[in-house]
């Protein structure tokens, strides 16, 4: 693999940014040189078989409009909170027993006896609140910046679906700890579904696994909380991110094309800078 011709052939496959400058095109091929080439070789090997690096560079080196500020990190922060929830959730599942007779005891056990149990459970518990807050903040940013407008309408719809799914997670996660507060909140929540005419009664039967709280109720909530909704969330996040890449991050609504160059100097003032009328903006764009 370390033949000079081979490595240079692979390197040509790499897009510019990943290609190391000054790579010897026909070196003497001693051991140190080939060791230096190894990472690039490996990358090239993978890339030749996946075509991944062009997508990676397209994602990583796509331009983000000028003036994006800290408000624009709320989306990725939400994603990160979800990843934290997923990780801690998977490990909590290793100790949890989804049965009405053992759930409470298994939670007490994992909190009190398991090494780092209270810490990890605390992260999952408070991470839920943090994620709900971040989702709402992210939505508020999108709303006030007008970022849901053309061409990002679908992006907003997916976002609202993600909001509903997040609240579903918060609701179904309740019952699992099986204390008084959790149980009664779930009773009320399930009955809220039942108040919808015609379909409501059957929906709450479906959620509960029968007319009364029974042996299958807790496993049902567990399956919904563990598998069904997270699967939907992951799919929706995938679509959300795909659209971010396709459509790009919005620019702050205050920024206009003719102001963009000035904004470099007036970085701190760009939010308050008053802008010229829309007609001159259009002219400016046409010139560009």
């Amino acid at each position, binding site marked *: 693999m370390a033949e000079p011709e081979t490595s240079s052939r692979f390197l040509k496959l790499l897009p510019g940014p990943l290609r190391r400058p000054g790579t010897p095109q026909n070196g003497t091929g001693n051991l140190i040189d080939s060791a230096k080439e190894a990472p690039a070789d490996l990358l090239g090997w993978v890339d030749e078989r996946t075509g991944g690096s062009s997508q990676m560079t397209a*994602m*990583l*080196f796509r*331009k*983000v409009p*000028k003036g*994006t500020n*800290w408000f624009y*990190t709320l989306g*990725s*922060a939400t994603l990160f*909170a979800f990843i934290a929830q997923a990780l801690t959730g998977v490990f909590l599942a290793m100790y949890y027993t989804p049965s009405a007779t053992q759930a409470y005891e298994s*939670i*007490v056990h994992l909190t009190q006896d398991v090494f780092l149990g*209270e*810490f990890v*459970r*605390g*992260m999952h*518990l*408070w*991470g839920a*609140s*943090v994620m709900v807050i971040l989702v709402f903040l992210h939505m*508020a940013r999108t709303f*006030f910046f*007008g*970022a*849901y*407008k*053309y*061409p990002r*309408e679908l992006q*907003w*719809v997916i976002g609202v679906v993600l*909001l509903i799914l997040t*609240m579903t997670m*918060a*609701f179904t996660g309740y019952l699992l*700890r*099986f*204390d*008084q*507060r959790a149980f*009664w*909140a779930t009773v*009320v*929540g399930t009955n809220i579904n039942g*108040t*919808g005419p015609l379909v*409501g009664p059957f929906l709450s039967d479906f959620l509960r696994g029968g007319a009364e709280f029974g042996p299958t109720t807790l496993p049902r909530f567990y399956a919904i909380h563990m598998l069904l909704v997270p699967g939907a969330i992951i799919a929706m996040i995938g679509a959300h991110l795909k659209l971010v890449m396709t459509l*790009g991050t*919005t*620019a702050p609504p205050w*920024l*206009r094309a003719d102001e*963009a160059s000035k904004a470099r100097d007036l970085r701190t003032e760009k939010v308050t800078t008053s802008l010229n009328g829309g007609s001159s903006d*259009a002219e400016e*764009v046409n010139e*560009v």
Partner: protein
Amino acid sequence: MNRAEKEAYLREYEVLKKKGKPFFPYAVAKDSAMALIVVLVIVLMSLILGTEQGPKADPTTTTFVPRPDWYFFFLFELLRIIKPYQLVPIATIGVPTICMVLLISLPFFDRGPERRPERRPVASSAGCLTIIAMAFLTYVGASAGPPTEIDLATKPELEAGKNVVLSSGCLGCHVIGDNGNHGPGPELTEIGVRRSAAAIERSLRVGPDLMPSYSNLDADQFDDLVAYVSSLRGEDEEATNGE
């Protein structure tokens, strides 16, 4: 947005994007910093606040006061303030469904080209009002005391009467301070200002309208009850009396 406005936006966005910086490493650095903050907040909350685990679920209880987690307090309060029973499906299903439909369809009815919040007065004020309403409902829901205790300060000699109030279910129909239910009975927080002790005693003995008569209580208990209810003179004064 019409076709020209759409094209104008896309052209302008293209220019702004060209003048921007690459996602990596500039935006990624900010995102990573924010991610670290999120993790630190979660870790600190977990370390400082720990976990909460109440008593085991007991469907046979008749004394437990159910309350949701904080992020559903607004819905909880909505259910409390919509009193007429005919409106229950509207509170439980109607309002949340309408809100969700409005939210999902937002980009389809708000299609103007303007993006700056200060130039979209209707949208911005609607958004602010929604936030204020939800914050208010959450606050009121969070501070709604259960009908099994009274948080107002009480003079020691009136404690006996307060306990009679609690055990007699007065808070099922009346509000005292932050505790109890709004209706069907009137609020009792300041009843001592509006009614004389004699009038209060008469009401308790007769039981006007829906209110049951409490004359079947022991004489001592009944006197304690009258003394406590007629001492209610509003939150602030009660608090100073209590000191």
